[in-house]
């Protein structure tokens, strides 16, 4: 008997939850006030709900189908899994997206799919959904489409006309890891697809001579995801791969997804609790690389085994390994160095740089900039404050580590 829409929604959202991305930001500003239709994107993303896993729910994240001809060991939908299978029709996905949107549950659609028949067939169906939403229903909300590996460049190009973002997952940090766990995937094909997309996005961004207008093509850029902890790659390898992906393909984001046990799992995989703290540290390191002027090597070189310290955030770990660079004078230091002070984020640094043109800053001023004094005081000099020999203390690390907890008596 055919499963009801509700039953299929359960299966196909369960199947989609291992993709971490739910971003709805960074695309063009647009709305429906002139078209009289439905939907808007106003720069900032909106998270309409949060699940108890702490993840934001911004988009209707579903698979078109979870039938798949690939057999990737880490994936719940791999062909050898006995997970229950289902598929949506094009019309059903369109209906769900619009009805969810009207009730303000979501910002838009994040559509992915298992690969059925062929890559091109699957991609064609996904593009049809996006086209229906945009052209038939005048939908101006957010659309994120997953590019199917090996799909034809023409289909990707059409997808880019409707989608705000396209993504294709590299899944694992090394080619060897992919060969072992995802035998049907070709890492070089994935890189080629990302390279092609970067060239197309750049070409669309060049204003044409006649109109000076830029063509709308994947305005939210491309992203990818790497699974952490399914293979034995260390953090240094993972971050190195991220840096290469950012540099090579102008990705907006690399998502890290702690490998999470899946039902009916393959025997090749560690069925442990997902390494959530490791995932968190990787995101922090990723931010240091993209917004704080750190090199991946700087972040990882002092870390044994190329693994980030789980007890301390990577900036603090770097500062403790490079004490000679501290303390930093908040009233005089260069912006680049302020960004390297543990406890100072980009906003606080902007606040400091802006305020110190008019006043000498004291510790209390930093507190008003929402800086944690506990963290920052050992590393800075301010008006009326000097850490003296705090920075040389041998127990400085212990001051920042989480307090040890007494074991429960048994």
């Amino acid at each position, binding site marked *: 008997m055919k499963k009801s829409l509700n039953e299929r929604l359960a299966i196909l959202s369960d199947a989609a939850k291992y993709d971490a991305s739910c971003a709805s930001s960074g695309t063009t500003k647009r709305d*429906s006030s002139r078209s*009289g239709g439905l939907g808007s994107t106003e720069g900032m993303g909106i998270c309409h709900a949060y699940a108890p896993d702490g993840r934001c729910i911004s988009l209707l994240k579903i698979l078109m189908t979870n039938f798949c001809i690939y057999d990737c060991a880490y994936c719940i939908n791999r062909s*050898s899994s006995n997970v229950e299978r289902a598929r949506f029709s094009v019309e059903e996905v369109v209906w769900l997206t619009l009805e969810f949107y009207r009730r303000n549950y979501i910002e838009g659609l994040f559509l992915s799919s298992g690969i059925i028949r062929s890559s091109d067939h699957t991609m064609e169906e996904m593009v049809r959904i996006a086209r229906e939403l945009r052209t038939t229903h005048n939908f101006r909300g957010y659309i994120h489409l997953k590019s199917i590996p090996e799909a034809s460049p023409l289909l990707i190009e059409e997808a880019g006309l409707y989608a705000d973002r396209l993504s294709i997952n590299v899944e694992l940090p090394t080619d060897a890891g992919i060969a072992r766990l995802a035998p049907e995937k070709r890492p*070089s094909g994935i890189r080629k697809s990302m390279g092609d997309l970067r060239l197309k996005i750049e070409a669309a961004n060049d204003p044409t001579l006649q109109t000076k207008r830029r063509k709308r093509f994947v305005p939210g850029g491309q992203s990818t995801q790497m699974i952490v902890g399914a293979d034995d790659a260390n953090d240094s390898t993972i971050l190195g791969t991220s840096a290469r992906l*950012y*540099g090579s393909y102008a990705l907006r984001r690399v998502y890290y997804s702690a490998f999470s046990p899946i039902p009916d799992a393959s025997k090749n995989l560690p069925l442990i609790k997902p390494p959530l703290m490791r995932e968190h540290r990787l995101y922090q390191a990723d931010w240091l690389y993209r917004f704080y002027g750190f090199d991946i090597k700087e972040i990882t070189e002092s870390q044994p085994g190329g693994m980030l310290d789980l007890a301390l955030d990577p900036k603090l770990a770097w500062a403790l390994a490079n004490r000679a660079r501290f303390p930093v004078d908040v009233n005089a230091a260069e912006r680049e160095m302020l960004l390297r002070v543990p406890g100072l984020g980009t906003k606080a640094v902007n606040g*400091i740089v802006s305020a110190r043109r*008019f006043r000498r800053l004291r510790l209390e001023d930093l507190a008003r900039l929402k800086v944690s004094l506990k963290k920052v005081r050992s590393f800075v000099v301010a008006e009326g404050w000097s850490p003296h020999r705090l920075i040389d203390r041998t127990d400085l690390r212990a001051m920042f580590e989480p307090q040890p907890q007494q074991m429960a008596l048994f």
Partner: protein
Amino acid sequence: MQRVVLKGRGDFEAWRQPARALLQARVAPRDVEWIEEGRADGDLFAALPPYPSAPSQLLSGRLSLPPGDSRAVTVPRAFVLLAESVVCHGDPARFGLLYSLLWRLQEERSLLAILSDADVAQAYALEKSVRRDSHKMKAFVRFKEMETADGPAPRRRFLAWFEPEHHIIARTAPFFQRRFTDMDWIIATPKGSSAWDGERLTLCEDPAENPMLDDVTDALWLTYFANIFNPARLKVKAMQAEMPKKYWKNLPEAALIPGLIAGAEASVAAMAARAASQPPLFHERLQMAAANAVTDVPIVATGTLDAARAEARGCTRCALHCRATQTVFGEGPDNAEVMFVGEQPGDQEDLAGRPFVGPAGKVFDGMLGEAGLDRSAAYVTNAVKHFKYEPRGKRRIHQKPDMGEVQHCKWWLKLELDLVRPKLVVALGATALAALTDPRQRFSDLRGTVLPLGVDQKLLVTVHPSYLLRLPDEARRKAETARFRDDLGTVARLLSAAAQTTTNPVGNRFIGV
């Protein structure tokens, strides 16, 4: 002491008018008491009529303006934006705070840039709270569909009940108008309501009551919420930080949360217990089909450039392939008279899969043209076929390939030389020279010389066009560019000389027209 009574519903104009008048009258902030109507704890001020219905009491006594003093009060635009937001906050101290800022701004024009100032920090804290509340309204309003009115083409009608912390309805309603343009909607809250009918956006200040509507589509949303949740990564605190409990009562999905948290551990345990089972039948069929699949790689005759190119696509002779996008093989006719050998593909070449298409390629093309040479008749390739680089932020910095990589890749270069058999090979730069000859020879000794290479084959040594791009000194660049142009002139001369001595009827087709 001046007293101003305001309604306090987030109306910026209601505050601006008395504030402007007070400032023009030079009333210091400490001499003004701002009172929110209905907030005065039942004391005598509660009976006062709100400003501006009684302006006389404001400008009374010694504080009345000197006649003719109507100096315009100016403030930075940022202050207006800040104040418009802060007046929406529920904090009774907000009016006084804004007036203090306004007062101080007259002397300290850059005050708002000093985010560490106590008043400024406090104002921005209120602004942030209002912004957040408005953002959460955009996120957590849940529309329920109402029965549609009769008519020829009825618009669908929706109603939402929301409980904001601050007076944000007027600020936030236009967002819903821009987004839900094709439907009629009402958002009712205890702090006023807003409605849209396709033509007009209306606001009402009266508190509304919860209409307690049901919508059948909520059931699908609940299904989605329960299934998109991953029980193996329970992070309740992270959820509550972004979706505080105060909003839960109007979110249909929030009713599921306690059950999902309570059942998380059990469902992870159940997942672990269900170890891998026998793969389904279609998996076996797929594996069989894959094993017997006819490869769709076009079959090309071995010993041709196309075959070599196809084979090179999967080259893993050195580790560079893992980092590059693709193999960048040489291109050009298989009977070209001249072969140009560069160092390695760059950023653009790596993406496009073709040699010499980036900035250095543009220089190269331009200068070939000047020398009367036609690129499409030449074979252009690189000593190393994969891009070697170091990521630096959003860019890739070119790295020189090492001798090991050059040696590994020589295999392909030799194959290209054997298949094309050019009369003249041009080494562009030291890496190309090392790949083509004995690596111990010094590039600077051989620059500009013509050497024998193979049977009836010559080698010309010159610089790589990217070298010209990297020279910072203008005069030096000009001189080096001229030298490179001379070298290309030598190429043209050698080719035409070869064309005259050869019997090959197409021998001189390389010379441009």
